[in-house]
């Protein structure tokens, strides 16, 4: 015979439990593993990344702003990111490309896309980002312009996994110079040209 006891809950009891779970009480929020990884340069210094047509170019992730996932970075020359623990992760990435006109082209433009490559499994298109087109007509000359590219996705890993953030940037008009981002040089703050946010969700 079952010895399970039932308890009738009224709405005030439910609300009290809810308050305990959602307030700043003893229970608190679920602890979420998270990491913020960036490509940075000193103030006034442009990105070291340069693009060639249809080449999945590595973003040079060289800075960890926050890390409760025990992620490690390889640094140059591979610029990989290793996630040590199996689980399901949400990935959000954002990066720049700089476009400007080196000579007399009245029209320049570029297409770009961001990728997360699973280096462990050799999967180029593990996560594929948004399709970004930048194209504009110029009157006579072109200064620099930073364009933002984004990526969102969720993947599950079952073993420690190494990934890289890669970007393709192709000219679609004229012969623009394309790099990984131009400096804004504001208040001596380090330049941020790419950001990868990794959050463990399961």
């Amino acid at each position, binding site marked *: 015979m079952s010895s399970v006891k039932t308890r009738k809950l009224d709405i005030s009891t439910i*609300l009290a439990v809810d308050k305990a779970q*959602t307030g*700043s009480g003893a229970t608190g929020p679920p602890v979420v593993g998270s990491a913020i990884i960036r490509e940075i340069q000193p103030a006034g210094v442009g990105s070291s990344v340069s693009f060639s047509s249809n080449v999945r170019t590595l973003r040079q992730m060289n800075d960890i702003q926050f890390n409760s996932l025990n992620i490690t970075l390889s640094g140059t020359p591979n610029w990989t990111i290793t996630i040590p623990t199996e689980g399901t992760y949400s990935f959000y990435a954002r990066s720049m490309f700089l476009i400007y006109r080196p000579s007399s082209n009245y029209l320049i433009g570029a297409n770009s896309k961001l990728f997360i490559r699973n280096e462990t499994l050799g999967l180029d298109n593990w996560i594929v980002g948004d399709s970004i087109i930048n194209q504009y007509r110029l009157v006579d*000359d072109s200064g620099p312009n930073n364009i*933002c590219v984004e990526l969102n996705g969720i993947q599950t890993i079952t073993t420690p996994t190494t990934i890289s953030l890669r970007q393709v940037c192709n000219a679609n008009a004229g012969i623009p110079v394309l790099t990984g981002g131009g400096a804004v040089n504001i208040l001596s703050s380090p330049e*941020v040209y790419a950001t990868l*946010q990794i959050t463990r969700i399961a």
Partner: protein
Amino acid sequence: MSIVKTQLGSQESQTAVLRETTAFGVPSTITFPADTDNIRVSRNINDIQYNTLGITVESPNFTIPGSGTFEIVARSNFSATWQVVTTSGSWGVVKSRLYLRNETDNLNNVLIGDSCFGEQMQIDVNSRVLPTQGVAPLTGVFTQSKTTTYSLQQICNTQFQNVRVPPLYPAKSGGTPISTSSTDPEYYVNVKITKISTAT
């Protein structure tokens, strides 16, 4: 009673989405100095879209109660109306960055956003200088050990070359209405804050 659960636990995620909003068709009330660089301007956070964090808004600031570790993802608009008449070889662009400032402890650079450029100054077929716009993003994690008030601050600097002398600087603002046929409010700033740990 609505409870949002994560797969990592049974408790509700503590998160909030804050915005800077105006009525339909109304530009952002934020302006940036036209001819002076590096001026931090607080975005006018004045709307709470979702809030299980207990955040309170006292425009332009907002206060996060208690202690913990928080993840923030913010996007902030800006626009420029160019006053210059361009000459051969001229161009102009607005460069912008977003900052999370701790008002309680007077810390300017709790977090700093991306190195962002707005659209380049353009001229249409009728030789009109077109308004330009951009979005400054910021992503990061920060901790606080006590209830803390923050502001989201933005800098918009102008860079241009070979314009009429003396240069006529563009009027820079926090965003222009999109002028759709709907009557939805305009949103110029979006901030999502999630508590990811009680630890500091």
